[in-house]
């Protein structure tokens, strides 16, 4: 196939481009925006496995992001755990909670997962706000240490960006491998027809649970990276609003597209930063850009890019044919 070679190369190219980016955009502000892009892209990547590929809706993914962030922040600060242990605990806690929600919600057909995750997100929000003795309440939790692994502290913004971009590249590679396998096909079959998937021997509830937990793990990994980057976490970052924003990133990037998830997250994370120059009308322009994308790019950014590539390659082929 025409796409086979670039397909295999693209994670490597992406990794190279992501690593080169801070040398081109060396301004510290750009580096911090790109770090947040990479962190959000990690969550959106997992959410796209769940929503775009397997067709299961989570309305509370910000809460898994929050569980990862808060668990690691509290354990490493209040309880002085080593950072690696706090991070691991945060991710494991998110996975365990996803299991607890997923087991009952995914046994049934229909939109139980959407409802369960919606309620879950609200509960986590309330818990973060009300348990002031533990989380610091609405004003947030401060003094989270910078990430140190194997004796190395990711002190500079650039080094932290490399860590996040590297983690994202790894997650991209793993996700692509998963989708191109027996597991990935089972997930996509579940999206179109649970009946057909079952008739082919797919234990649908087990696969749905697996991808739900996996997406929670992606979000929690993003969460621990986030907490140890900013050094500060507050409940407002993990609410329903952000859950919806994550879904918007999936849809805008392109459902069932790995690169779309990365593009959608990067686009929607950086757009407000660039629009800030417009001062009062930035929200208006943000909304306008969203509406225009939804109207003119039904396949998301990924679908649009594929269309553009097709037009270009046809043009080039046409020119070559005439010459």
């Amino acid at each position, binding site marked *: *196939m025409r796409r086979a070679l670039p397909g295999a190369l693209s994670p490597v190219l992406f990794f190279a481009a992501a690593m080169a980016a801070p040398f081109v955009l060396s301004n510290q502000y750009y580096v911090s925006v790109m770090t947040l892009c990479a962190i959000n892209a990690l969550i959106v990547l997992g959410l796209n496995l769940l929503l775009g590929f397997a067709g299961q809706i989570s309305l509370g993914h910000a809460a898994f992001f929050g569980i990862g962030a808060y668990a690691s922040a509290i354990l490493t600060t209040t309880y002085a755990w080593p950072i690696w242990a706090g991070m691991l605990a945060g991710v494991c806690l998110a996975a365990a909670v996803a299991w607890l929600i997923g087991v009952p919600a995914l046994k049934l057909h229909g939109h139980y997962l959407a409802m369960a995750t919606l309620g879950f997100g609200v509960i986590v929000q309330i818990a973060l706000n009300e348990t002031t003795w533990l989380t610091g309440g609405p004003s947030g939790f401060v003094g989270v240490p910078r990430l140190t692994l194997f004796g190395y502290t990711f002190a500079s913004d650039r080094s932290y960006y490399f860590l996040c971009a590297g983690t994202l590249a790894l997650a991209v590679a*793993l996700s692509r*491998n*998963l989708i*191109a*396998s*027996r*597991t*990935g*096909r*089972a997930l*996509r*079959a579940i*999206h*179109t*027809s649970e*009946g*057909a*998937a*079952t*008739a*082919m*021997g*797919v*234990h*649908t509830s087990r696969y749905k649970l*697996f991808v739900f937990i996996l997406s929670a793990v992606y979000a929690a990994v993003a969460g621990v990276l986030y907490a140890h980057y900013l050094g500060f976490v507050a409940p407002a970052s993990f609410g329903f609003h952000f859950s919806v924003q994550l879904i918007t990133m999936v849809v805008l990037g392109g459902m*069932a597209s790995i690169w779309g998830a990365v593009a959608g997250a990067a686009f929607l994370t950086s757009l407000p930063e660039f629009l800030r120059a417009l001062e009062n009308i930035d929200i208006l322009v943000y909304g306008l850009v969203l509406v225009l994308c939804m109207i003119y790019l039904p396949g998301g950014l990924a679908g649009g890019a594929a269309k553009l590539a097709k037009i270009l390659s046809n043009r080039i082929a046409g020119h070559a044919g005439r010459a």
Partner: protein
Amino acid sequence: MPDAPEALLAISGLTVAFGGVLALCEADLTVARGSVTAIIGPNGAGKTTLINAITGMVAPSAGKILLNGREITRLPAWKRPRAGVARTFQNLEICSNMTVLENVLTGAHRLIGYSALDSLLRTPRFLRGEAQARSMALGDLAFVGLAEAADLPAGQLPYGSQRLLELARALALKPDLLLLDEPAAGMNIRETRLLGALIRRIRDERGVTVALIEHDMDLVMDLSDQIAVLNFGAVIATGTPSEIQKNPQVVTAYLGE
């Protein structure tokens, strides 16, 4: 090990109720190994429900289903392919978010041996398993005449070809018993004739026992070793095509309407 029983499928007293509606009412059916059995009957007779019960998609309230002499009445639906059952759907259930080949590969799901970890890390075991499954799936596609379309998005296939794709996908499960729910629906005369030949080859070359629901009487009479007539959830007659054509009960219930 005891000798394999003569009947591949033996159903007795099977009853399925939806609320007050008895979709199946003490239905009995035996399907001999290596045969083609047609299940016919008027709309709403319970034909699809019978296939749904055999594949575990509805739970019967009474009765027994034996496959290969083993009772599968309460076996979870996803385990039934392992017991030897594959099916197609009356309302096409193609996975339009995948290519034609990937659809067939999904059919090979239970036959692929590598683990999720193998696929994440692209181990040699994964690559070997995929290559093997791919060549088997391409074989199944060629068998139904869709080899050319392997890399097309499945949703782009014309309707008749989507039916053939479902057939290839079901064959990829390597079943003992293949259940087809109105495979000729939406096909023209030429496509229907090819389908008839294909089903015969499935029985003769692949050794797969076939039970099909079909409204096209020419196809049914031409193809079947046995016909079972369903009416109001009960099997009212079984026999060879010529026996069924002569059966007065069948004529009033179905053929003569």
